[in-house]
């Protein structure tokens, strides 16, 4: 076949079979009463169920000397508590649940979204590949930062922040949830499109798809890390006010 024929076929096939022919919107999967539930929300629930069941089984027979999966969980929590302490100091402990939940959920969603089941079976899509889900998390973080800012500065101080040192403070505040949601959504969605395109258009693409799936795992970790670090930093800034910000993350090895 000629090259032009192959390329047109490839483009058509990629567009049609990429699983994203319905575009960026998600199908309504079923209804709970009057409320429509889309595919991404359903798969988010599936991942939450997986996480809850895992947490239940890990938390059952905790031993003083951790072994196996409990060890992994303890490493995770210790590392993050150390990082929270570095960024936010002692006041940071109150953010720990939000920060850790964000990290664990986003990481689980990204990683489980690369498994073969997700993306092919109707009703299962990688949850962060929909802007609504990432925007929901970003809005929650935004609301939390405003809440902590009001609690730290008082309502008058909070309003004064928008005028006094930096008149564009409101732009900075509003751009944060925008960038948080778009960054996570763009990375995961583009990764999904990339893998699908590789699978469809590259001849013998089955093998090279594994390389891109590996890239997806890496991107999943990095994006979860970035979202969580940014959440931590924003919450910490909101909590300490703008007088004295804590010492960034100088020595990462000081804790071990």
């Amino acid at each position, binding site marked *: 076949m000629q090259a032009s024929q192959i390329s047109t076929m490839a483009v058509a096939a990629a567009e049609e079979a990429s699983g994203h022919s319905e575009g*960026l919107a998600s199908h309504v999967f079923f209804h709970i009463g009057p409320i429509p539930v889309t595919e991404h929300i359903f798969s988010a629930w599936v991942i939450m169920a997986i996480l809850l069941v895992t947490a239940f089984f890990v938390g059952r027979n905790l031993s003083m000397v951790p072994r196996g999966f409990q060890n992994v969980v303890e490493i995770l929590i210790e590392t993050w508590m150390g990082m929270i302490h570095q960024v936010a100091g002692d006041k940071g402990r109150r953010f720990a649940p939000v920060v850790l939940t964000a990290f664990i959920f986003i990481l689980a969603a990204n990683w489980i979204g690369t498994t073969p089941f997700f993306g092919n079976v109707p009703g299962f899509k990688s949850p962060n590949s929909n802007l609504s889900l990432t925007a929901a998390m970003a809005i929650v973080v935004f609301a939390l930062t405003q809440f902590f800012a009001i609690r730290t500065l008082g309502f008058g101080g909070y309003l004064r922040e928008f005028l006094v040192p930096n008149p564009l403070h409101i732009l900075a505040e509003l751009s944060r949830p925008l960038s948080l949601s778009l960054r996570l959504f*763009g990375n995961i969605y*583009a990764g999904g499109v990339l893998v699908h395109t590789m699978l469809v258009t590259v001849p013998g693409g089955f093998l090279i798809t594994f390389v891109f799936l590996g890239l997806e795992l890496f991107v999943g970790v*990095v*994006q979860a890390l970035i979202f969580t670090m940014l959440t931590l930093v924003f919450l910490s800034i909101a909590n300490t006010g703008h007088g004295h910000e804590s010492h960034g993350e100088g020595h*990462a*090895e000081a804790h071990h």
Partner: protein
Amino acid sequence: MEGMAAAVAIAVGALGPALGIGYGVGKAMEAIGRNPEVSGPILVPMLIGLGFAEAIAIYALVIAFLLPK
């Protein structure tokens, strides 16, 4: 011609982040070259910084996806 807008959006939009990532990693390599022990502590902040730079390219990609073909 209709697909040009999306192609230009992502092509131009990826230029800046590519330069930024190259510069950032280059600086990290320099630092490691001066002092090979810092390769561990530099890794995570470097990756986080790369994530930020790459996010800009992803914004352009999202715009490219949103444009009608």
